[in-house]
């Protein structure tokens, strides 16, 4: 009985505590197609180095890439103005869940894995699960399931890579509200004269309006200029904010 308990403890230890071994050793570049229900969902380009990895997700060949970095024991998502920890974003989007299956050595959230012959067989994370199949070169396909969704990642190419270290450099955002520091344009600084009067778009009226009626029009202008400066960044910030909180338009897209 004691032996069985010990064996169980060893198995449990292996399932929970082992750090995931890398899927590829050294500097490699692999490309992956992602399919769900027989339809293409996206592609991933995975770059690996000795101690870091970079994955780029594209919905379609022409769409912009979402860049994920694996480094320092964490997975990072690149957003405007810096990198944010993926662990701080609760959204289980296809790209988030698929990319984590490839960057698993760097995922530090609630991970549980099983190994077969020293290779990762299954990997559970964020309420999802990845199941790996291998060929002589390494992992050849991965089934990813989460929340009733099923995606299959299939490796379409694998070669060596000459990507330099800058591809893997993480630039974390700083501060308490770091994930949205992109919007930290100050209300307290001087008004930005470079923002044109027409920048406000439709229904703009006369930006910079000043009457001598006791109102604080300088404060109004600062507020309008802040929002004009934010306009381009606000959409990015709202995506993160709404994904994290599962609210707004991004909630509908999840």
């Amino acid at each position, binding site marked *: 009985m004691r032996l069985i308990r010990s064996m169980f403890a060893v198995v449990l230890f292996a399932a929970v505590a082992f750090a995931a071994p890398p899927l590829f050793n050294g500097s490699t570049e692999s490309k992956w197609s992602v399919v769900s229900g027989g339809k293409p969902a996206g592609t991933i380009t995975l770059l690996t180095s000795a101690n870091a990895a970079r994955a780029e997700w594209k919905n379609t060949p022409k769409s912009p890439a979402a860049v994920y970095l694996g480094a320092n024991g964490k997975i990072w998502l690149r957003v405007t103005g810096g990198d944010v920890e993926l662990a701080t974003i609760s959204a289980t989007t296809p790209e988030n869940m698929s990319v984590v299956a490839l960057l698993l050595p760097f995922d530090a959230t609630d991970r549980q894995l099983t190994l077969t012959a020293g290779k990762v067989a299954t990997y559970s994370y964020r309420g999802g699960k990845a199941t790996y199949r291998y060929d002589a070169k390494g992992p050849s396909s991965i089934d990813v399931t989460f929340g009733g969704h099923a995606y299959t990642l299939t490796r379409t190419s694998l070669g060596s890579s000459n990507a330099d270290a800058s591809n893997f450099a993480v630039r974390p955002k700083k501060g308490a*509200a770091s994930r949205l520091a992109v919007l930290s344009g100050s*209300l307290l600084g001087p008004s930005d004269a470079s923002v044109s009067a027409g920048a406000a778009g439709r229904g703009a009226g*006369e930006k910079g309006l000043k009457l*001598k009626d006791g109102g604080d*029009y300088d404060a*109004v202008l600062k507020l309008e200029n802040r*929002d004009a400066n934010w306009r381009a960044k606000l959409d990015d910030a709202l995506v993160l904010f709404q994904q*994290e909180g599962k609210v707004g338009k991004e909630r509908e897209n999840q």
Partner: protein
Amino acid sequence: MRMLINVTLAIALLAAPAQAQFGNILDKINANKDKIVKGAKVAKEANREFTEDEEANIGRVVAARVLATYPLLKDDDLQTYVTLVGNTVAAYSSRPTLEWHFAVIDTPIVNAFSTPGGFVFVTSGTLKDVHSEAELAALLGHEIAHVTQKHILREIKRGNVISAGADLAQSATNGSALTDEFGRKVGQIAYDKLFNTGLGRADENEADRIGVQLADAAGYRAAAFVDFLETLHRLEGSSELKQLTKTHPSPSDRIATVKPLVKSDRGVLLAERYEKWMN
């Protein structure tokens, strides 16, 4: 027969001065035709819908008055947070493409204000009495509703500050009616409505109703607004709540209005995220 003759005679006697009197009225109308036409134009002008450009300028005048009363809070993180929540909710309003501006103003009083054109202000005192992002979302939804339903704009219109042919879309230097005097009048109407007398009960009820609908549509737990109103109920009588009490229906009345509209278990509360941003 005699009676018929008498009646006919009486009508004849009365008709002569009536005809003279009617003729006098016509004369007077003719003599004052220009004034009457001008008056009708003024009345028509006063009732016309403002263009979006005009609304934006009126909004600036009112916002300038609010910001002359309470300055912007010097906390960029909080300003960012309120902007993100506000834009998340405003996207579900009937005017999602309006140039919305959300900001926190620095005062311990508990209140929030909105102006035509999409300026929405919440006081730092209010944020201390809010306990979740869902409460904040519904509160901002209430202010967004005042804008979309043009409640303050209608009060300004009622103030007859717009003269015939007035163009509020450009500055006074371009010959517009957007003058300092206009600003003073509009500012005073808005100041009275926002800080002293408040809008009508129907407007406030409508804003409460739409506010929770918007929060719900955005995925927030709209029922949290009832929690906020209960907090206000507990604060009744405090100096921080004096202005809000003056300008809004009582919290208990508002609870009675809102409670039947919301489902207690629907949507996210995000109390922890709210606390993180507040600290």
